[in-house]
C-alpha cells in the first residue's frame, strides 16, 4: 500500500496549479477570492478558457476532443479547480448528455451536438424531475406522442430544471407508452429550448439566486431524429446517465476550501479579544470537521484507485455522495456559527459590514440542496441497504 501520488501525477498537479495562477481573468479571480456567486456569462467565459487549455472535458475521450486524462488526473484537476474557487461548469452537457450521446447516440447526433457542448456554444439543461415525482424518476408524466409527420408532440411539465433559463437545449425523459409498465414506456428526447410551446419559469432558491426552473411543454414539436436510443427504451439511458462521472461526487476540493474559509474567518473574528480560532471549543469543532473530511478524502482516493484499476463504481459512490454532501453542509453551518451576528446579514447589500464574507450565508442556504439532488441521501441509503448489505425490500 502506498499513499503517495506518482511523480507524473504530482507533476500534473503542479502544472494545473501553475496554470491556474494566471488563467483566471481579474474579475473572476476577485469573485473567487470571496467565493461569490458567478453569473452565467462568467461561467461560460471560464468554460471557454478551460476549453482553450483542453481541460474542459477531462473525462471525454480524445476522439471527441477530450484530453484523455486517467481517473487520478481527472480527480486532481477537479480538486485543484475547486480549491482555486474557479466557477463550477454546468455539468448537463459535459458530464451528462455528452457522455450519454457517445454511448447511445447516432453518428449524426454525436457530430451535431458534441463539438458544440465542448466549445460551450450550446448550453444544456436536464429535464428529468417532474412535480410531485421527487426521487421517483419513473413516475414521470410528460407525454411524447407521434404527430403523424415523423415528429413527436410534447405536453407536460418538468421541474427543478437547473439553469434552464440559460439553456439552448434540454434532454428530457418522456412517456411514450402510457399503457406499459412504469419503466417500460419511457423515451429519451433532445429538445431545442427555442421550440414553440416550451416556456421556462425560474425559481429563486433560498440561497437568493435563481437556479431552478419549471419548464412547460405545450404542444412542443420535436423531430424524431432527436430521439436517443430506442423508442420506449429510455429507462436504460436514464440509469446510465446517473452513473456517469462519479469520481468528483464527494466535492473534497469544495469542502477543503470551505474549511480553510471557516478557519480564516475564525482567525479574524474576536471573542473577548481573542480570535475564535484560538478558542479550544471552536478549534476542536473545526478540527473534527476537517478530520471527517480527511476520512472522506481517503475513501475517495480508494474509490479512484479502484476505478483506475478498472473496477465498476460500487457502493463507494453512494458513500461519497452521502458524506460529501453532509460535510459540505456542515462546513457552511460552522462558517455561519463563526460569523455570529454577521451571519444574519443578507448579501451585505450596501457594503455596511466591512470585510463580510457575504457569500457564506448564500451557500449556507443553498447547500441544503446537496443532500437532496443527485438522488437524495435517503435514496442512496436504500441503494446501499439493498446492494451491499443485502437487506430485504419491504
Amino acid at each position, binding site marked *: *500500500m502506498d499513499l503517495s501520488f506518482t511523480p507524473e501525477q504530482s507533476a500534473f498537479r503542479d502544472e494545473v496549479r501553475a496554470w491556474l495562477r494566471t488563467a483566471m481573468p481579474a474579475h473572476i479571480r476577485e469573485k473567487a477570492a470571496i467565493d461569490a456567486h458567478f453569473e452565467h456569462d462568467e461561467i461560460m467565459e471560464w468554460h471557454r478558457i478551460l476549453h482553450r487549455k483542453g481541460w474542459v472535458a477531462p473525462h471525454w475521450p480524445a476522439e471527441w476532443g477530450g484530453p484523455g486524462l486517467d481517473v487520478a488526473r481527472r480527480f486532481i484537476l477537479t480538486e485543484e479547480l475547486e480549491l482555486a474557487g474557479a466557477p463550477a461548469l454546468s455539468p448537463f452537457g459535459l458530464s451528462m448528455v455528452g457522455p450519454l450521446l457517445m454511448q447511445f447516440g447516432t453518428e449524426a447526433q454525436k457530430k451535431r451536438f458534441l463539438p458544440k457542448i465542448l466549445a460551450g456554444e450550446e448550453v444544456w439543461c436536464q429535464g428529468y424531475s417532474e412535480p410531485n415525482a421527487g426521487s421517483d424518476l419513473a413516475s414521470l408524466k410528460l407525454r411524447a406522442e407521434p404527430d403523424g409527420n415523423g415528429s413527436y408532440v410534447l405536453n407536460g411539465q418538468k421541474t427543478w430544471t437547473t439553469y434552464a433559463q440559460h439553456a439552448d437545449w434540454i434532454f428530457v425523459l418522456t412517456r411514450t407508452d402510457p399503457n406499459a409498465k412504469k419503466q417500460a414506456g419511457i423515451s429519451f428526447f433532445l429538445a431545442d429550448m427555442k421550440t414553440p410551446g416550451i416556456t421556462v419559469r425560474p425559481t429563486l432558491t433560498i440561497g437568493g439566486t435563481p437556479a431552478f426552473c419549471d419548464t412547460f411543454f405545450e404542444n412542443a414539436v420535436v423531430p424524431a431524429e432527436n430521439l436517443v436510443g430506442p423508442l420506449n427504451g429510455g429507462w436504460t439511458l436514464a440509469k446510465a446517465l446517473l452513473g456517469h462521472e462519479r469520481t468528483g461526487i464527494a466535492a473534497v476540493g469544495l469542502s477543503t476550501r470551505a474549511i480553510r474559509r471557516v*478557519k480564516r474567518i475564525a482567525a479574524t473574528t474576536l471573542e473577548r479579544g481573542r480570535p475564535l480560532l484560538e478558542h479550544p471549543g471552536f478549534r476542536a469543532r473545526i478540527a473534527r470537521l*476537517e*478530520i471527517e473530511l480527511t476520512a472522506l478524502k*481517503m475513501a475517495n482516493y480508494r474509490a479512484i484507485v479502484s476505478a483506475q484499476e478498472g473496477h465498476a463504481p460500487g457502493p463507494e459512490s453512494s458513500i461519497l455522495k452521502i*458524506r460529501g454532501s453532509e460535510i459540505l453542509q456542515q462546513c457552511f453551518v460552522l462558517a455561519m456559527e463563526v460569523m455570529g451576528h454577521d451571519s444574519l446579514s443578507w448579501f451585505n447589500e450596501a457594503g455596511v459590514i466591512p470585510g463580510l464574507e457575504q457569500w457564506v450565508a448564500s451557500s449556507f442556504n443553498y447547500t441544503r440542496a446537496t443532500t437532496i439532488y443527485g438522488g437524495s441521501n435517503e435514496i442512496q441509503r436504500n441503494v446501499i441497504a439493498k446492494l451491499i*448489505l443485502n437487506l430485504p425490500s419491504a
Partner: protein
Amino acid sequence: MDFDLSPDQKLLESTAAAFIRKESPVTRMRALREDSVGWTPEFWKKMADLGWLGLAFPESAGGFGGSFVDVALVIEQLGAGLVPEPFIPSLLAGTAILRAGSPAQHERFLPSLIAGDTSLAFAYAERGSRFDPTWVESTATREGSDYVLRGEKVFVENGQAADAIVVSARTSGGPGDADGISLFVLERGAPGLRVTPVKTMDGRRAAMIGLDGVRVSEASRLGPEGGAAGVLDEIVDLGAAAACAEGVGVMRTVLQMTVDYLRTREQFGVKIGTFQALQHRAVDMFVRTELARSTSIMASIRVADPDPVERRTAISAAKVELAIAGRFVTQQAIQLHGGIGITDEHDVGLYFKRMHVLNVVFGDEEHHLARFSAQPSFTRGIETTAS
C-alpha cells in the same frame, strides 16, 4: 497511490481470519473473563508459530521484517474475534526495545517474545498525565551505577502477566518537559515492583504498576538517559494506529452481526430488516465503518512516516475518526438488537465494551482533536487563500 494488498498480505489476512474463527471463537474470550491472567500461553504460542509475534521485527532481530500494514492486518482480525492475548502491549514494548535498546537488550527480550515464550507490557500513562506521554511524574534517581524508580503507572495492559514491562520515568526536568524522560525495562518480580491486577470493563486484565523504589542497573535503561521522548511519542502513536486497526475489526464484526440479525428477526409479521428506518441505521454503520477503515489504512502507512507532523496529523485524524465511528457503530448495533443487545449473554455488548477501551487508550477523541489542531499544518495556507 495503491490500496491493494499484496498476495502475501491477502494470504496473511485470510489465514488470520480463518485461524481466529476456528481457534478463538468469542466463547473462548468469554471463558477467559473469569481467568486471573485473561489469556493463555498455549494460544500465545500458536500466534508465535503463525509468525505473528515476529511480524513487526526485522530479520536481524529474529523477526520477519513485516511492515506495520502487515501487522495491522493481523490486529484487525484479533479485533474481529475479540482475541484477548497481549499482542498490542507486547508489540509496543518490543518496538521500544528494538528502537532504543542495545544489542544485548534485543537479545535478552526479542527472541523469546517472537517465539511466544514471553509477553511484554508498556507503561506510559500516569494518573495525572491522561494521554500526554511527556507528563511523567515518576522518577528514576541515580544512586551510584543504579537507578531507583518511584511513582505509579495506570492501566497497564498485560501488566498482570508480562515477563517484562517497559516504563517511562523522569531522570531530570519536570512533568511536561520533553527532555529528561528515560525508558526502563523492568523484569517481572523485581523488588519494589508492585503489580495490582485490575479487571477491565471489556472483560480483560490489566494492572496498576507501583514503582516503590525499584532498584535497577544501568543495563535496564533503554537508550540515552533523558532522551526517550521521541521514541515514546512514536510508540504511543503506534499504539493509536494499532487501536484503529483493532477497532475496524470490531466495527466490521458488529456490522455483520447486526445485518444478520435484521435479516432474520421478525416482528409485526415481517423481517425487521424491511423497515427503512432500521436499514438506514445499518447503512450509516456501514458508511462509518468504511470511513474509519480509510483513515485506519492512512494511519497504518503514516505511522512510519519520518516527518512527525505528517505522522501525528494522520494518527490523530484516524483516532478521532475511530472514536466517532466506533461509538456510533457499536451503539447502533445494540440499539438495533433491542433488548437482547443489553444482555451479557449476547456478544454485541462485548464488542461495544472493547470499542470503548480502544477509543480511550493512546489518546481519546478530545486529546487527538487538540493534537491535530495544534500541528502547524492545521493553520497552514489560511492567510493566502484570499489572494
